[in-house]
């Protein structure tokens, strides 16, 4: 009989796991809708959004631009070594630009953004909750979703495309710096091949769409994790780690999905 009880327990555990999964998904979806609705209203109070853009955007510019420059350098070098084998060094420009605009720009920016801005959002919200500031706001009939979460969410969505564009532009410049003045690829061919190979709608606009989606993802994960954090120092620490792990994985998985949709069947 023992095995039968154990089997029943296993089935029950599966059922509980499924139920909790459904509950989590449903709650996350409800938060998401509430956050979206509150963000629309947050745009009516641009002061708050601008403050948060300064917090998540301006302070990420340095790391984004330095990373973009180095990613561009590496793309220039590696691309050159591979293309030289086929005698196609002139295609370096299109290689660097397409890799950056389509994939690396949005994805690496989102990963850095999760590490640089997402964590501080989670820690901030988590500490506000630990200090019972959010509860105090609710006591004063101020909706913390509108006053605290929504401006941060809107700022993350607005900042991500700008940061990704900066990353790609600096990266193209980095690739040019390595390819043209350092290695000696022809300047005209570098740019003309790039301009011939990169489409505005197919590549640039799709890259911007990607970065907006990643901004939504990272902002949502960071805020929800902070909101759900156990209000202790340990809980906030764990929530911060969770933000990085979950948003990085979500960004990479979504990137695969978006790439398959945008560039897949052509």
């Amino acid at each position, binding site marked *: 009989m023992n095995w039968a009880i154990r089997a029943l327990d296993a089935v029950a555990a599966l059922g509980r796991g499924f139920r909790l999964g459904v509950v989590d998904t449903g709650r996350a979806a409800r938060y998401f809708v509430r956050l979206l609705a509150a963000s629309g209203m947050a745009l009516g109070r641009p002061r708050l959004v601008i403050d948060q*853009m300064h917090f998540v955007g*301006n302070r990420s*510019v340095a790391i984004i631009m330095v990373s973009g420059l180095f990613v561009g350098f590496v793309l220039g070098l590696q691309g050159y070594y591979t293309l030289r084998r086929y005698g196609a060094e002139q295609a370096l420009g299109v290689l660097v630009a397409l890799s950056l605009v389509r994939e690396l720009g949005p994805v690496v920016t989102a990963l850095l953004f999760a590490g640089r801005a997402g964590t501080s959002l989670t820690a901030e919200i988590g500490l506000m909750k630990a200090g019972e500031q959010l509860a105090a706001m609710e006591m004063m009939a101020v909706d913390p979703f509108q006053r605290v979460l929504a401006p941060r969410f809107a700022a993350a969505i607005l900042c991500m495309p700008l*940061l990704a564009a*900066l990353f*790609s532009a600096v990266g193209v410049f980095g690739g040019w710096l390595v390819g043209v003045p350092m290695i000696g690829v022809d300047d005209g061919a570098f740019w003309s091949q*790039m301009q011939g190979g990169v489409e*505005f709608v197919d590549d640039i606009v799709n890259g911007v769409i990607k970065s907006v989606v990643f901004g939504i993802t990272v902002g949502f994960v960071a805020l929800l994790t902070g909101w759900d954090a156990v209000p202790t120092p340990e809980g906030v620490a764990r929530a911060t780690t969770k933000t990085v792990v979950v948003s990085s994985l979500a960004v990479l998985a979504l990137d695969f999905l978006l790439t398959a949709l945008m560039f897949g069947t052509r």
Partner: protein
Amino acid sequence: MDRKKTDFLVGLFVLAGSVALVFLAFRVANLGGVELGNALDVRARFDNVGGLKPRAPVKSAGVTVGRVKSISFDDGTYQAVVMISLDRRFQFPKDTSAKILTSGLLGEQYIGLEPGGEASMLVAGSTIGMTQSAVVLENLISQFLYSKAAEPSAAGSGKAAKP
């Protein structure tokens, strides 16, 4: 931090991001550079377009004078119909011929226009009569092999030399 400074810094950030976007659009993707605002659409029929793609350049004397607008298939004649957008600044005679060429050995394919000698010019909607299809490497190789096989002495000695 006082309000004005924050506003200024955020403004600077938004400006830098927008400049980066404009740089990507105009310098990297060359938006506007190849867009033919004032285009003349003509049609050309090819037996085989090979690897020609929409937006491939149309060149005359090596200079880009237009873009391939679309490629479709006509099941009446079983030919490919290529719509070409030509820059209106350039005028081509009616008996211009079109060829599908390849830039370099493995490069992308483009259409080369060779102007004829007629006095009247191509107008919107007209069809380029003389066309030459893309060179398909497999056909070329099989033609070469057949012509080799047709030479009996060469084929015979070649076989004999093998152990």
